[in-house]
């Protein structure tokens, strides 16, 4: 284990200039049956970044794992933009409107970014989730969804 961590550290030193981190904010929101929200993706890297956004409904299991699926019929989600190009050290905000006809609705907005390029081998794509819990009433929506799933943690 120590060897692995040492190698990781060495790798970070060697490839330090190419380390590229992406941030989603906020990561979790709660809202009522109809909500208008937004989230930001920050490109912490030094090269421009193409971002694409897709939406999934999801269900939690007792551990809080999310099982994703295509958007449920009762979910009407309008994304203002499905993709964007973010400049180095830049931030882009994606707006959306969500209507949930049969609450609660749990939706993950997944932002995907390909970091490198290669003609052979494997590219690394980072995907960050903006998690939306929509209920009849906004307050404690996430807590109620988790409780209904039997999730043990808060």
């Amino acid at each position, binding site marked *: 284990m120590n060897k692995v961590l040492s190698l990781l550290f060495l790798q970070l030193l060697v490839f330090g200039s190419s380390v590229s981190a*992406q*941030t989603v904010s906020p990561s979790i929101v709660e809202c009522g049956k109809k909500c208008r929200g937004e989230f930001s993706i920050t490109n912490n890297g030094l090269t421009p970044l193409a971002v694409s956004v897709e939406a999934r409904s999801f269900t939690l299991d007792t551990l809080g794992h*999310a099982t994703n699926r295509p958007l449920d019929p009762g979910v009407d989600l309008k994304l203002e933009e499905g993709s964007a190009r973010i400049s180095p050290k830049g931030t882009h905000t994606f707006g959306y409107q969500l209507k949930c006809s049969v609450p609660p609705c749990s939706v993950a907005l997944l932002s*995907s970014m390909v970091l490198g390029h290669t003609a052979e*081998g*494997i*590219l690394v794509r980072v995907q960050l*989730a903006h998690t939306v819990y929509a209920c009849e009433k906004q307050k404690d929506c996430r807590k109620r969804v988790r409780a209904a799933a039997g999730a043990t*943690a*808060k």
Partner: protein
Amino acid sequence: MNTEYTVNILNKVTFVIAVLTLSLLSGPQSQAQTTSNAAAVTMTFAVNSSMTVAATPSSIVFTPTDSKNATASAAIAIVTNWNLAVGGGNVFTVAYFASIPAALTNGTLNIPASDVFASVNGGAAAACTLANVNVAAGNPGAICPQIFGGIGVAAQGTHSDSLLLSLTSPTAFAVASYSGTITISAQAT
């Protein structure tokens, strides 16, 4: 006598002028001190919850060790960082391929996800064929062993992991240049 009297008068006049000058100079300052209002500056600071994932290197290549096996040029170092509104939530990081039969392909020839093995933090390598969709991953059957599963995590935290990929096929890999994409997916629930 007259001269002494004149000098005395001049001294007194000089003294009076000096006092008046000093009072004029200090006047505006004392006035400012007595008439200024206490200014209140309102400060606000809103911090949204956030999650950051860093993965490096951004691409890897495989080097064959024999006709049926290949190792990756480097492990993928993955750092998951979160700042949530409350503690006790869950944070998951997983890796998956978009296609089960063609994790890598040259357009015609494919290497399936079952031939791609992942070792997390130096653990035993296992095929990327899991079906349980932990987090945002959307392709049951092409998921690698879980990279990080934080259950009941603190509100703020960072977790560092490594993912070393390798290729193992029951038959010799067909001659071709293959490429693919692995998705590192993170979600807080």
